[in-house]
């Protein structure tokens, strides 16, 4: 660990921000086309973020500020750990548990700050967000657990590298088809895309945790959202779709996967939070367990594979 690592880390952050924000802008256009309209400019998301950063803001006490900083800090640290097409700013720290739990720092920070605003809508939103997390994480973690057991590695980068070289057949989403489906459904939940976006439902709880954010706080939330999206999509991409051998392949696959979730979400209303939990614990959980048993006991897809 030397200064170069930090420089790389910083560059990763900048690059990820530009890439993901552009992609979000493009996805807003995709959604717009789905809704039969032109939609915003492709760089609209940048404008929104910078505008928010520019505005004055209101603060409800130090924890409101501190939570925001902690959230963005935790999320940015997580981004630095994500291996992108074999590149890691800090090699060897891409353990899947580290990533998924470091992600929770950001969520905790955001939850703390939102609840610190003293707004009941925000608290309800946080309660729903945490419940949502409990819903999607269990099936996903079971599949990831199976994968770690099968490939004897918990390193995201290594797991991604193992899938390369066989083309599509090497992808874990193909080797473990049920797991792949679970992962994509869980990705919808992770990203807070419909139908699993009840924690920000504007018509119910007036955008939930975001309710009191304005100005730079809101800007932070937007940046955080971009980074969080990157982490979550990257995690699924690396673990189930083979990451990317080159950066271009990675970006292309990433864009396709992310746009796919956007399109799905475009034609979905939202579940109530308990319906989301029920859904996750019925279909994807069963699929994940079946997948886990198949892999652990028969080795089909891992040991038995072409």
């Amino acid at each position: 660990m030397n200064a170069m690592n930090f420089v790389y880390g910083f560059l990763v952050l900048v690059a990820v921000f530009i890439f993901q924000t552009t992609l979000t802008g493009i996805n807003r256009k995709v959604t717009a086309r789905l809704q039969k309209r032109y939609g915003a400019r492709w760089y609209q998301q940048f404008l929104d973020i910078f505008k928010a950063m520019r505005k004055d803001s209101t603060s409800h006490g130090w924890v409101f500020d501190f939570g925001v900083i902690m959230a963005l800090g935790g999320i940015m640290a997580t981004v630095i750990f994500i291996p992108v097409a074999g590149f890691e700013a800090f090699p060897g720290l891409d353990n899947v548990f580290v990533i998924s739990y470091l992600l929770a720092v950001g969520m905790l920070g955001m939850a703390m700050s939102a609840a610190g605003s003293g707004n009941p809508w925000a608290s309800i939103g946080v309660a729903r967000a945490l419940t949502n997390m409990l819903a999607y994480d269990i099936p996903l973690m079971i599949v990831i657990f199976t994968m770690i057991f099968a490939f004897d590695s918990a390193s995201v980068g290594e797991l991604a590298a193992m899938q390369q070289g066989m083309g599509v057949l090497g992808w874990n989403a193909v080797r473990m088809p049920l797991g792949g489906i679970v992962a994509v459904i869980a990705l919808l939940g992770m990203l807070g895309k419909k139908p699993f976006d009840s924690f920000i439902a504007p018509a119910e709880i007036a955008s939930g945790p975001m309710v009191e954010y304005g100005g730079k706080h809101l800007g932070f939330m937007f940046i955080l959202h971009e980074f969080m999206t990157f982490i979550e999509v990257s995690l699924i991409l690396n673990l189930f779709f083979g990451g990317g051998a080159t950066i271009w392949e990675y970006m292309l696959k990433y864009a396709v996967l992310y746009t796919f979730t956007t399109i799905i979400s475009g034609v979905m209303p939202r579940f109530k939070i308990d319906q989301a939990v029920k859904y996750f614990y019925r279909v994807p959980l069963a699929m994940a367990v079946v997948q886990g048993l198949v892999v652990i006991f028969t080795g089909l897809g891992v040991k038995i594979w072409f």
Partner: protein
Amino acid sequence: MSIAVFLAILIILAAASFFVTAANKKAGGFATVAVSLFALAMVLSMKGSVGGEQSFMYLGFSITTVGWYFSVVMLTAYSMTSFFNPFWMKKMIYPAGYNFLYLVSMAGTIGMFFAGDFITLFIFWETVVWSSAFIIQQGKSRKASYVYYVLSAVGSMATLFAIMLAYSVSGTFVIRDAFTGLAGSPGTALVVFLAFILSGLSKMGIFPFHVWLPEAHGSAPHTFSPVLSGGLVKMGAFIAFLSVTAFPAYEIFGDMLKIMGIPAPIYFLMLLGALSIIIGTLMAIKQEDAKRLLAYSSVANGGYILIGILMLDQVGFAGGMMHLMNHALASAAAFLAIAAVAYRTGTTKMSEMGGMIHRMPVTYLVYLISIISMAGIPPMGGFVSKWLVFQGLADKGLLFIAAAAFFGSIGSFMYVFRPLSAVFLGQLFTRDKDVREVGFFMMFPMVVLTLLTLAAGVFPNIILRVVTEIQKSAGIEPVTLARNTIVTTNGFLDAFRVFIVFGFGFAIAFVLFIVRRKSRKVGLMDTYTSAEFIHTPELLHYSHSFYAPFERLYDKAPDTMNMYKKISAGIAELGGLVEAVFYGGKPAKTIFWIMAAGMVFFLAGGVFR
């Protein structure tokens, strides 16, 4: 100093503290601080004499690393909590008795951890149970004490049974010898194993013995709950440790049915651990009282510790042993924080307060860091130990247990966040407008525990080195430690670097935050209310039924306590029936009729033969 002398001194000091308290309550409280700190210092200094065997009269002691480790955990909880004692004396019914029992139970735990034979173990075990039962009784409800005592008694009886059974086979009370003597008779061994670990399970609050934890923790005096959760529960872990190491469970059950390479009895116990994780998590989510919530979280964390210890391997075992320490630190700190809030507001009901962060910021930070650790989020200690447990599970492919572990881990975000949001964040109630932060003397132990939690997360190898020694003494391969790194088969973890990168991210965010214009401060009530007006902060604080939609999914599920109640009601009913038959009306008449019936039966038998 020999253990016996040390314990004798402690008992004498405990008696002394009784009289000091009787003279001056506050001084008595400070006496417990002094004595427990002295005990901690003594035990810490004992590290060098590991390996010694001592005996005193019929008591046998052996100084082991594991005993030392457990003692340190226990005494940290005791000594740190004792800082609260002076301030709570006026709220106690029998302050002198409390201080006396507090120190006696402490001495008892030390004696138990260093016990060399079963007799010593059992005596000190009972000392702790009795003294703590009397302390719990000084809290909110008597019932808690009953429940605690009954379940402890179940454990004690089982232990006694196991000891006697082992003695009958192997003819010795020395722990290791008594157990190894069982190797020849697996049937007896299984019974001994299960009976012996039963006391550990009941103490740790593993399902289905978890019912006493919320009762006892929830209603024990606020100053004793941290000890209960941070310390006494870990006695169960000690028993579990003995059951799998001193009792070579893996070897004795080696011929039995194996599930994923784990002998069936142990797998069954692991399943119990997994169940307690799930039940503890689900129950913690729906508690309305902060202390009960933390108590259920102890149930869940007990599950992790049990699973870790039972794995008895390189990684998972280390995780379990380390989690014991981390949970003790975090849980004691969290209970202390709640106690501090209760000290100022007089309640632990979450829906009765809010916004304490604006009055007690240090307490808030203490609670925050302890829950981060409890939820297993980096960079705190709890993360490292849970990571180790997960790695161990992934190594073995224990899918269902892992699923429960994940559930407990994510679920813990939910329940630990709840007091954070309800007690510390949100609207500050009108009643609590003038509350102040607790004084330095109460803040000190909380801050120390917090720093230790942080240190355990950033430099986990300090604790893990001790754990490797324990692993070596237990005869298993120790977890591989590099300078800052923990290496497992599936990958490695450099907690320090994770911490540094986290700090790096935080620094960037912080810089980004302060370069932008300073934000306008507004009051808590100046918040989005759909543009309507409201002036009552109590009505704008969301804290009751926090996870209502989720809770509703399982509120019909059967409750273990109700099950016990039903059983006890059934037994009482049966007793009532017997009583009604024999003692209803005139007993003489009943006896006459029974005899008459017997005669008739006898005669009839004679006739029709």
